[in-house]
């Protein structure tokens, strides 16, 4: 009833190729954006902004990057944390070594640096695949971790190797408030998510999917695996690198290599799988699930006044979180995005299913 396509006709090629062909989708998206840009910064508390929304947006961006690689191109990677670190350290070095460079430019350069590094570590994908590749990308993770703690030039010779981000100055404005930082992140994430959505619909995205579905067949119909795989690694790493720079500059403010350790890689992979492989929307849903559910589980007992020790709360958090992952996988192995798609199909008929 509410979500009815009837009466929406496509009369031009442009309409046929629209990102969101259905009117309701466009309205919903517009509403979400209006709320996100105007209502949220005005209404939400600092806690919600700094501890939930900003990390949620940044991790969604990183998950989009990883999803391009895993979900669209079928190459499993566990080196995402390391590439986020590349983004963070590159942005730091551009910011302090090139005076007068705007931070936005630094972020883009950081993304490009990560893309180059990601491409290098993507080379083995031409030869190995599946879980072998996944474990092989751990080499990137550990090597990058090591190099950022060992090569002192990257950390500008600080004695401990822990870095503090320079002040956030974008286009001459100095951003200090949580809502300012939130809006900056949101703007970057929205632009890049739109970019990703369009990339995956285009020629290059289709070549990735062909490789994912059957690489030998793709090769036979004329898709060059070298180009397709390495471009997926590069684009994916670009997104991940920008996310890493944002994580360091906007969210943490100060970081050490441990902020981008192997657990970060794993949690991003969880987001992509739980959210839905090969879906941009799924990245947001997955990031929300992996980030917010543990926090909520952690705060529930206190909020309801249930007297549990801190250790027990944390253990319960892990147990319930683990069970929820399994529960969702069993209910819908193709992720939360698929659940959403099913919901939309149901809404077409609702409330008159027959």
């Amino acid at each position, binding site marked *: 009833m509410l979500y009815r396509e009837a009466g929406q006709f496509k009369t031009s090629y442009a309409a046929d190729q629209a990102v969101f062909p259905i009117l309701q989708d466009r309205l919903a998206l517009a509403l979400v954006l209006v709320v996100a840009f105007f209502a949220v910064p005005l209404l939400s508390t600092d806690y919600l902004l700094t501890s939930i929304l900003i990390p949620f947006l940044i991790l969604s961006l990183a998950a989009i990057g990883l999803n391009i690689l895993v979900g669209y191109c079928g190459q499993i990677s566990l080196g995402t944390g390391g590439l986020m670190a590349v983004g963070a350290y590159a942005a730091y070095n551009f910011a302090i070594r090139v005076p007068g460079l705007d931070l936005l430019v630094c972020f883009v350069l950081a993304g490009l640096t990560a893309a180059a590094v990601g491409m290098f570590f993507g080379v*083995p994908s031409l030869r190995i695949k599946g879980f072998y590749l996944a474990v092989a990308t751990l080499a990137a993770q550990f090597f990058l971790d090591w190099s950022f703690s060992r090569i002192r030039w990257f950390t500008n010779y600080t004695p401990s190797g822990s870095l503090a981000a320079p002040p956030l100055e974008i286009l001459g404005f100095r951003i200090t408030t949580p809502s300012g930082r939130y809006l900056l992140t949101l703007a970057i994430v929205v632009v890049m998510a739109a970019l990703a959505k369009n990339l995956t619909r285009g020629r290059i995205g289709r070549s990735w999917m062909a490789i994912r579905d059957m690489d030998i067949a793709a090769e036979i119909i004329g898709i060059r695996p070298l180009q397709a795989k390495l471009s997926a690694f590069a684009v994916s790493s670009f997104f991940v690198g920008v996310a890493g720079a944002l994580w360091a500059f906007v969210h943490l403010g100060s970081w050490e290599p441990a902020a981008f350790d192997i657990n970060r890689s794993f949690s991003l992979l969880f987001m992509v799988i739980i959210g839905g492989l090969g879906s941009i929307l799924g990245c947001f849903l997955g990031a929300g699930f992996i980030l917010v559910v543990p926090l909520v589980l952690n705060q529930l007992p206190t909020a309801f006044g249930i007297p549990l020790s801190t250790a027990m709360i944390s253990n319960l958090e892990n147990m319930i979180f683990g069970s929820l992952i399994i529960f969702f996988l069993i209910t819908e192995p193709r992720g939360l995005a698929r659940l959403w798609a099913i919901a939309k199909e149901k809404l077409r008929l609702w409330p008159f299913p027959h």
Partner: protein
Amino acid sequence: MGFFFEVAIGGLLAGVLYSLVALGFVLIFKASGVFNFAQGAMVLFAALSLVRLAEIMPFALALMLACAIMVGLAFAVERLILRPLVNQEGIILFMATIGLSFFLDGFGQAIWGSDIYILDFGVPKDPIFILESLFEGGILVNEFDIFAAVVAGVLVLVLATFFQKTRIGRALRAVADDHQAAQSIGIPLNQIWIIVWAVAGFVALVAGMVWGSKLGVQFSIALVALKALPVLILGGFTSVPGAIIGGLIIGTGEKLSEVFIGPLVGGGIESWFAYVVALLFLLVRPQGLFGERIIERV
């Protein structure tokens, strides 16, 4: 020269311990195609169960109970995770085992506690020196490491016999080769999964005992699983001898590189060197040392 051998022997003995964890991965991957991320959590859970039960009952009884718990876990995993997810893609099953590892981490600590518990078999931990006539100062080896190596060796022998000689073992190998063919000749897949997870649980218990008596039973032994990953890609995900030999190569390579190359670049290269060795090897042989050659058709 003596020092070189000393490092190499130390590496070999450390490698045996990696093999022990890698074995658990291989068993499950071979029989059910699941990359079991929860292996580390299982090692911790098994060791915690054993050490905490041993506090309130005789050790032998605690050991039997801990085995029973791991078998119970295998049943639960088959019933609650594998059966509903049958025929899903590898990555989904992988994700499910991650959920399992979260659950086990929380569950193990909730019922058994998160302190350090000491597990002592009375194995002397003093160094001994061998070949003192050949090299100045002799070559230092650690009795405990030798003990661990013997345990791992015995375990491998037992598993090899189990796989080669018993009916169940042959059924397991049949399942590993071809699920559908095995099922069509009447091998019950679900039972096989329970058995293989129970065996992996048993391997986890042994690994937990060895690592636990080395480090003390505490959360960190769950992280030891990460050390087994390069062993897997080097040895192949499906090969028991691969896990053993891969472990030895990784252990030795890691220690030699740290001692002889590490100082040139600031040290700490152990963490990634093993992966680079494994990676270079994979570029030559993508299926690992003993992995089966993957033939693909369109």
